[in-house]
């Protein structure tokens, strides 16, 4: 059976009928969006990985309990679970603050970079690191919308439902996020000519 051509909904049905490979396809299809959305909120790759796993364990349990709402889309639903687990984590952190290590912004694996001088490479890496830093400086509600819109590829209606605000508010937060990022980049003379 070719799982790659199946819709998310069809894969969910197949999984509930015992086809484990359907779950594997769902994870493969959405793992980067879900993981990145979690990672950019918690800023720690090990913690993000734990929450990513917990998210799918909850997905599996909910599916098997027959509690998945067929009317909703699979990805927004999973992102909502991940988002709630991130909030749970921060609530626990607030109650029991601990000192944690950052993962050190090691994302710009230089693997894909060819024929560049060391200086160009370093500027590019630094700029990406700065961009991630600037995203983290955004107010949490603006950061959430930016992450859900860009990495989760959710519509503004889906974001509005997920964050319990109106569509206009979700849209406005995206605008504020972009506006603020631009202001910070302008003030720091960060260039976007880096891709």
């Amino acid at each position, binding site marked *: 059976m070719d799982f790659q051509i199946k819709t998310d909904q069809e894969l969910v049905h197949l999984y509930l009928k015992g086809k484990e490979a359907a779950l594997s396809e769902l994870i493969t299809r959405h793992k980067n969006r879900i993981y990145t959305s979690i990672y950019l909120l918690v800023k720690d790759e090990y913690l993000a990985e734990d929450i990513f796993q917990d998210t799918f364990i909850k997905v599996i349990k909910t599916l098997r309990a027959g509690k998945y709402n067929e009317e909703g889309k699979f990805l927004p639903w999973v992102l909502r679970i991940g988002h709630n687990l991130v909030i749970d984590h921060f609530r626990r952190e607030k109650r029991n603050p601990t000192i944690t290590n950052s993962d050190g912004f090691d994302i710009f694996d230089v693997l894909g970079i060819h024929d560049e001088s060391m200086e160009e490479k370093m500027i590019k890496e630094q700029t990406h690191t700065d961009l991630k830093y600037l995203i983290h400086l955004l107010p949490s509600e603006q950061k959430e919308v930016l992450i859900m819109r860009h990495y989760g590829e959710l519509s503004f209606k889906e974001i509005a439902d997920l964050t319990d605000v109106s569509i206009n508010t979700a849209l406005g937060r995206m605008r504020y996020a972009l506006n603020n990022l631009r202001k*910070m980049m302008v003030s720091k003379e960060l260039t976007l000519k880096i*891709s």
Partner: protein
Amino acid sequence: MIETSTTPNLNFNPISNLEEPEMTAFSESDIDKFYDALKPSLNKLIKQPTDKAIKNILNFSSSTSN
């Protein structure tokens, strides 16, 4: 780290008024253009979970299936 003339300076404080509605700073079309220009850079931030994490999930699923 080697500083260059174009190396952005990380030593700055967050802008304090990020929550203020200052949408007049840039026009709508400016923001759209900015987002389009920003997308490739945002995409560079995409990360993926390890194979181990995925294996753990699949193991959990198969071990708890009826």
